[in-house]
């Protein structure tokens, strides 16, 4: 555990990608099995302990510290694991655990999965007593399930791949057939065994991503070299269908990060199982389609992240794939082929499908950039028709582009709609978490409306990013200076017509909400500018947001306090 804790600690302070890779690679090279394998599982988010939850950690610390002091400390530090690691009383003080050796990572992983629920608090407390601050922090990070040390699963796999000097994608494609502590993987990478073949059916293929684009860059590109598609406001999905040697039909659905999400979409999975014309891997957008119309992201969200997938949920929010690429067909890997060729193969495949759960993302016809600019501005009139509301821009793909995992330069571009902007007034602030810990960095802002007692501000949303580090310091200073009230961790800052701070907030859209006093919720709000110059009186009104609601939605304004 100590070596692993030290690795996490060093990774947390190391900003450079290459140095992070070197630290991890060194660790994997010098740490024995199964310790390193469990570390890899932890770094790739592959460990979860059903019974060890943040609540358990909170209960342990509550027995040992004053609740008010804990609450103040947590608010300051902004991270549960770190707060507990720092506050944990030394064992001499608590009178337990004399000189017990610190646990190994393997002890922790095996202990947590074997222990009965009632044994966990004692087990965890003994480990915490035996570890130093860094060890406690790492252990708590591990069991609360969020390392947040700036290492993606992809980066960890890249480091492992470095052991055997193989391409990280080779590790990626094996990944779903492997389980912690990955001994066959390490054996292969160190040249002690063959590649662990055949472990994985219907593997994930890392997706190709695009670069953002603006109008100025567009003028430097040649329109004849590109195809355009709508950029759908759904979630990226990869659907793989294979036949096992025994003839079993297997379907797997993956998110863009390679997470297996098949279980969340039994309707889609069942429909794809029946598509006997399809053996291969499709890349596309997961959408909700009702009455032949793509629903907005607001609607799709109601289907996502549900614990129970009920028949009613599936009926109300039927999942659909709008396909835009074909990565493999039968035994053939299509990824080296040019986009135009893959597109022909995709069109032919979709035409053979029977179930209606998969359709084709149409190309947006254009000859000049002017035509594409016009299409992006009015997708409804340029072919998206009734689905225009679910379009969030256009994608540009070079006709000759092979399918390259990752974000290669110069091949694919995304050109999103410009965000909506609104001038809102800062009303409340809270300290942030993680990177922004101890700064007042979560801002609740409001817009004007007519109330019973004249003009009043009503909170419409919260934003905690979009500003630079320098602006964060200025905002933090403003909040501390202009606090008029405190409600626990929340500070109310001055917000009258004359005094206060106007924030220009960018957002992607609005939806009706019963949770917000204003009756609307903004999507993806972020601070785009700080208007130090603008008096709060001149900020925008709530009516403006109401005008942006999708069809059929109204503001359900509530009176009284939220």
């Amino acid at each position, binding site marked *: 555990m100590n070596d692993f804790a030290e690795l996490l600690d060093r990774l947390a302070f190391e900003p450079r990608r290459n140095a992070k890779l070197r630290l991890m690679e060194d660790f994997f090279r010098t740490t024995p099995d199964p310790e390193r394998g469990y570390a890899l599982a932890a770094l790739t988010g592959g460990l979860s302990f059903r019974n060890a939850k943040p609540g358990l950690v909170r209960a342990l610390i509550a027995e040992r510290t004053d609740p008010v002091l804990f609450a*103040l400390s947590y608010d300051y530090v902004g991270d549960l694991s770190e707060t507990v690691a720092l506050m944990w009383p030394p064992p001499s003080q608590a009178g337990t655990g004399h000189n017990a050796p610190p646990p190994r990572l393997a002890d922790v992983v095996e202990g947590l999965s074997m222990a009965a629920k009632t044994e966990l608090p004692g087990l965890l407390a003994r480990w915490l007593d035996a570890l130093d601050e860094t060890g406690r922090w790492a252990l708590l990070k591990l069991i609360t399930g969020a390392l947040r040390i700036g290492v993606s699963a992809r980066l960890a796999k890249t480091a492992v791949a470095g052991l055997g000097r193989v391409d990280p994608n080779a590790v990626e494609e094996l990944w779903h057939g492997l389980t912690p502590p990955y001994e066959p993987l390490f054996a292969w990478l160190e040249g002690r065994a063959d590649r662990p073949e055949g472990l994985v059916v219907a593997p994930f293929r890392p997706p190709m991503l695009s670069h953002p684009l603006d109008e100025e860059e567009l003028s430097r590109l040649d329109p004849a070299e590109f195809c355009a598609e709508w950029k759908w406001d759904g979630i990226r999905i990869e659907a793989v269908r294979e036949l096992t040697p025994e003839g079993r039909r297997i379907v797997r659905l993956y998110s863009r990060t390679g997470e297996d999400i098949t279980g969340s979409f039994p309707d889609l999975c069942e429909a794809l199982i029946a598509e006997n014309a399809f053996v291969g891997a499709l890349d596309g957008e997961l959408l909700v389609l009702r009455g032949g119309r793509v629903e907005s992201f607001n609607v799709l969200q109601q289907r996502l992240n549900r614990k129970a997938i009920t028949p009613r949920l599936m009926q109300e929010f039927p999942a659909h794939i709008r396909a835009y690429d074909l990565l493999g067909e039968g035994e053939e890997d299509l990824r080296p082929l040019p986009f135009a060729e893959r597109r022909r193969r995709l069109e032919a495949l979709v035409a053979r499908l029977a179930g209606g759960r998969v359709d084709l993302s149409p190309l947006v016809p254009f000859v000049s950039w002017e035509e594409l600019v016009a299409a992006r501005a009015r997708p409804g009139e340029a072919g998206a028709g009734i689905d225009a509301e679910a379009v969030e821009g256009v994608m540009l793909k070079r006709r000759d582009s092979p399918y390259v995992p990752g974000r290669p330069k110069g091949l694919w571009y995304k050109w999103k709609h410009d965000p909506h902007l609104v001038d809102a007034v800062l009303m409340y602030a809270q300290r942030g978490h993680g990177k922004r810990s101890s700064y007042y960095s979560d801002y609740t802002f409001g817009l004007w409306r007519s109330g019973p007692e004249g003009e009043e501000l009503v909170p419409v949303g919260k934003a905690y990013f979009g500003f630079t580090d320098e602006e964060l310091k200025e905002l933090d200073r403003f909040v501390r200076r202009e606090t008029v009230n405190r409600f626990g961790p929340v500070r109310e800052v001055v917000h009258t017509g004359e005094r206060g701070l106007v924030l220009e907030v960018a957002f992607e859209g609005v939806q009706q909400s019963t949770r917000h006093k204003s009756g609307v919720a903004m999507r993806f709000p972020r601070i785009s500018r700080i208007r130090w110059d603008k008096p709060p009186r001149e900020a925008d009104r709530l009516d403006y947001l109401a005008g942006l609601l999708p069809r059929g939605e109204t503001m359900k304004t509530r009176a009284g306090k939220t």
Partner: protein
Amino acid sequence: MQARDILSLTPAGLYCPLADVHIDPLRPVPRALITHGHSDHARAGHGAVLATAQTLAIMAARYGEGFCGTAQAVRYGEAVTLGPVRVTFLPAGHVLGSAQILIEANGLRIVISGDYKRVGDPTCAPFEPVRCDVFITEATFGLPVFRHPDVVGEIDKLLHSLTLFPERAHLLGAYPLGKAQRLIALLRQRGYDRPVYLHGAMERLMQLYGELGIALGDLRKVEPGSRESLGGAVVLCPPGALQDLWARRFPDPVAAFASGWMRVRARARQRGVELPLVVSDHAGWDELCATIRETGAGEVWVTHGEEEALVHWCTREGLAARPLNMLGYGDDEAEAEAVAEPSA
């Protein structure tokens, strides 16, 4: 007569009407008592100033000889009578010359701690606990997450990094008054006898410490054009310089920073620090609590920092406690933050 009649809170800071003096005033006043030389406590422009000789020397070095109308030096433990009030300066262990101020009037003993710490510091006299009725304390690190580790371990982290990366310059950000000198003294105690290099902003106070009898070994200025050749060296600089263009000319620099704030990982990351050293010149949580108990005070006033938690703790201990919510102090660590460039 109550403590509040002896000391009141005014916009300029704590004020003792019986003696007509302010303590560490935030704006120019006719008569001031100064606990120590950090710029948030020791400001220029007062009429008469009473402080330790070292604090007066620090103020003169920072602001010039004319930093006040008249200056009077006081020794630790020497009582000065100001009308009906007796004033005594006692070591606070914070930086060279730092003092707690004991005010005695009408049979009440009030101690204004200024900033203080309890762990040993080779560059200044150690804190002396004083029995009193009212203890006025800082709370810069007044949360139970701030348990400063043993400084030797922190210094060893730096020495370990030097052996691990002998080709990289180790830029050590530190507040120029007190922290910087203490770090060098600690390095010397651990047997580091190579030259320590100084950013220009560090020189004047370093020289003053030398004149005041604190030996720090071989100190050298970073000469223009010499930065490329300082691989493997320890270079002390103000924390703000870590992200400056200045820092980039060193060979593959390691950004180290010594501060009590480094206890919280996010703080170190926000500043782009790779090697955080938890070394503080302020009392940590356990020191604050132990000190309050040792003074035997029945009443505690908390000047600045995380006063809410400390006031809560005092109340739970059965002590009368009040937060003064004083703005303008606690900037010696905060000042170091403010001059920092944003980390990308």
